[in-house]
């Protein structure tokens, strides 16, 4: 998509949000084994299956009770994640989406800037709920660079995906200070954080949803 096109597509409607969440669900489904493998190294080997279960419920719910607005879509998805995932990632991702959804209100269409601000609010809520700081080797290390990279146009979606990816990769040398991986102390170093990895998948799905 060229940047001239993106100008007219700046309004993101409910179906964009449905495409985003569906793309995220597919991506999580395909990468589930890898996520579990990463969680097996420094966690309890369930992150892939947790995310897969949660996002399957999200796509199910989107079909069964199609949301009437972008905000409603995110709130619905967030509620599904809270109700179906369990673990640390369920409440955190659930809060991220619910909080972002609330920020969008009931507008029928939102701008990339509004989405960026909403996600920023969601990520802040994750930080507050989980008490993690950047560098603690959590999903925040992918989510924070992603919302930094989000701008006023949809072109920034690709940049956000790349930033999240880089952020996830950057967790490898980190010493975990939050979540299950923190129990390992020094032994957590050298492994990529599963939550940061799934965050990168979800952020990358933003750009896919533009197609």
């Amino acid at each position, binding site marked *: 998509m060229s940047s001239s096109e993106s100008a007219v597509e700046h309004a993101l409607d409910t179906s964009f949000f449905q495409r985003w969440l569906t793309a995220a669900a597919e991506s999580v489904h395909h990468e589930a084994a890898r996520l579990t493998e990463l969680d097996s190294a420094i966690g*309890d*080997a369930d992150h892939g299956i*947790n995310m897969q279960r949660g996002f399957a419920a999200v796509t199910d719910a989107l079909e069964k009770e199609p949301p009437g607005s972008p905000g409603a879509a995110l709130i619905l998805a967030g509620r599904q994640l809270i*109700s179906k995932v*369990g*673990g640390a990632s369920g*409440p955190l991702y659930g809060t991220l989406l619910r909080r972002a959804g609330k920020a969008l209100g009931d507008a029928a269409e939102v701008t990339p800037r509004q989405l960026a601000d909403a996600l920023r609010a969601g990520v802040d809520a994750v930080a507050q709920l989980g008490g993690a700081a950047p560098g603690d080797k959590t999903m925040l290390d992918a989510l924070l660079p992603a919302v930094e990279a989000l701008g006023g146009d949809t072109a920034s979606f690709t940049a956000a995906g790349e930033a999240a990816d880089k952020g996830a990769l950057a967790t490898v040398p980190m010493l975990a200070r939050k979540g299950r991986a923190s129990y*390992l102390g020094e032994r957590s170093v050298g492994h990529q954080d599963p939550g940061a990895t799934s965050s990168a998948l979800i952020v990358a799905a933003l750009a896919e949803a533009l197609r």
Partner: protein
Amino acid sequence: MKMLINVAETVVADALRGLAASHPELTVDVENRVIVRRDAPVPDKVALLSGGGSGHEPLHGGFVGVGMLDAACPGEVFTSPVPDQMVRAAAAVDSGKGVLFVVKNYTGDVLNFEMAAELAEDEGIQVAKVLVDDDVAVTDSTHTAGRRGTGATLFVEKIAGAAAEEGAPLERVEAIARRVNASSRSFGVALSPCTTPAKGGPTFDLPAGELELGVGIHGEPGRERRAMMTSREIADYAVDAVLDDLRPDSPVLVLVNGMGATPQLELYGFAAEVHRVLGERRVTVARTLVGNYVTSLDMAGASVTLCQVDEDLLRLWDAPVRTAGLRWGC
């Protein structure tokens, strides 16, 4: 790795069906994953509710019954339950005197129980929470997720459960639960990793001739890996790790806990060594419990939990309990 299961997806539901069929004194909601005392809500009694990932049985479902928990919410294997379960369970057991949530200190459990507490309070249920964090293998600092909850959970649930059964109000049940947790410390070792149904293989590699010191109960590796040690050496190491943090000046309850696949023959031999070290360190033992109580699927290994007690706590420990996993006095 072979397992006695149908498919990985149904292990928790299958186990709940088995629990329901085997224990008519429990009401088991298989679909919504809630295990409740059949006589709940017990009039005028504070209710105790716990839950956590599955794979640690008999914790928590095996501890539902007279004198212990009123309800348990099992999550997927090693995955904390979701708030919906706790809200439903709280509604089923609340007599109006309030509900104490017993929460093991894992990020997932903490967050899900917190959300559940908010939702339950919205529904007019009075909720108190106690966080169990007894595992000395994890440094307790603001820069970590804090110590894990392991063996002390059994002590908290049993002793606070007895207080509730006696008719103590919510604040007192909560205070006792906190006191038990503050008086308890644990340390665990693994001789083999465990196998989760979803993964179908070991959760970590442990070479022959080595063991993991300071393991948790979710298949995560421990703090340190060493060349295999004898039962005597492991007891020295584990008990000293606990006593480094807890210096009991009154008798202790001792839990010598199997991780799941360690034969009872070995576990009692280990109990002998634990008693030996405690004797050498001049710690008086009030009661000992030996068995698979807080497990990690098919992991081989053991943990030691000590809980310092006064006469009041000891009386509550000795009080009747009638659950699938722990029973005496009735």
